[in-house]
């Protein structure tokens, strides 16, 4: 059973566009929701993370929106650039336990 469901599987946007990637979870015990960015040949790297006590977190051009009641969270990339082309994974964890990852979204930003 997929603990974290991620969509879309792939996304193509023009430079300057705002890609949005969505994730949903079921386990209300999850209390930490990170997003990871992965470039080819590299391991995933933490991009931004949020805890359920806030509804939004912004770091630079990256924003997480969190809806606790709907058990959904999403990543928005403002003013997207070709260098943002990568695979993005959402994840969820319950403190002290394992992390559960979404299936990934391949983002392509066209110059």
């Amino acid at each position, binding site marked *: 059973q997929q603990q974290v469901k991620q969509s879309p599987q792939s996304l193509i946007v023009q430079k300057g566009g705002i890609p949005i990637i969505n994730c949903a979870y079921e386990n209300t015990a999850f*209390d*930490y929701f*990170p997003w*990871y960015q992965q470039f080819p*040949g*590299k*391991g*995933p*790297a*933490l991009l931004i*993370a949020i805890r359920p006590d806030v509804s939004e977190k912004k770091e630079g051009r990256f924003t997480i929106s969190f809806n606790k009641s709907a058990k959904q969270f999403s990543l928005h990339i403002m003013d997207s650039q070709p260098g943002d082309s990568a695979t993005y*994974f959402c*994840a969820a*964890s319950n*403190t*002290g*336990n*394992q*992390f*559960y*990852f*979404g*299936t*990934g979204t*391949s983002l392509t930003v066209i110059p």
Partner: protein
Amino acid sequence: GAGVSQSPSNKVTEKGKDVELRCDPISGHTALYWYRQRLGQGLEFLIYFQGNSAPDKSGLPSDRFSAERTGESVSTLTIQRTQQEDSAVYLCASSLVAPATGRDSPLHFGNGTRLTVT
């Protein structure tokens, strides 16, 4: 400081051979994870070590897979009698559970070992 180090970076082996993959986590990180990533796919959880607790082995796909961790340091993932479907990138990650808050810190990943079984 040094990140998570994995070795070898690439491994080509013949079907039926055993392989050992190594992970050196970030110093002081109490939690260590192994994931498998098939080409173009997501992250498949394999095993999780946390401090001195019994490891969570629920993701290991078969009894050909095993992993060990020495204290809070190096871990090795062993695949016996490799099969072609074992071909993938094996990623290791570590994290620190902050003792004061009990909260997780993020996972820090290595660059993986690309395993090819011919």
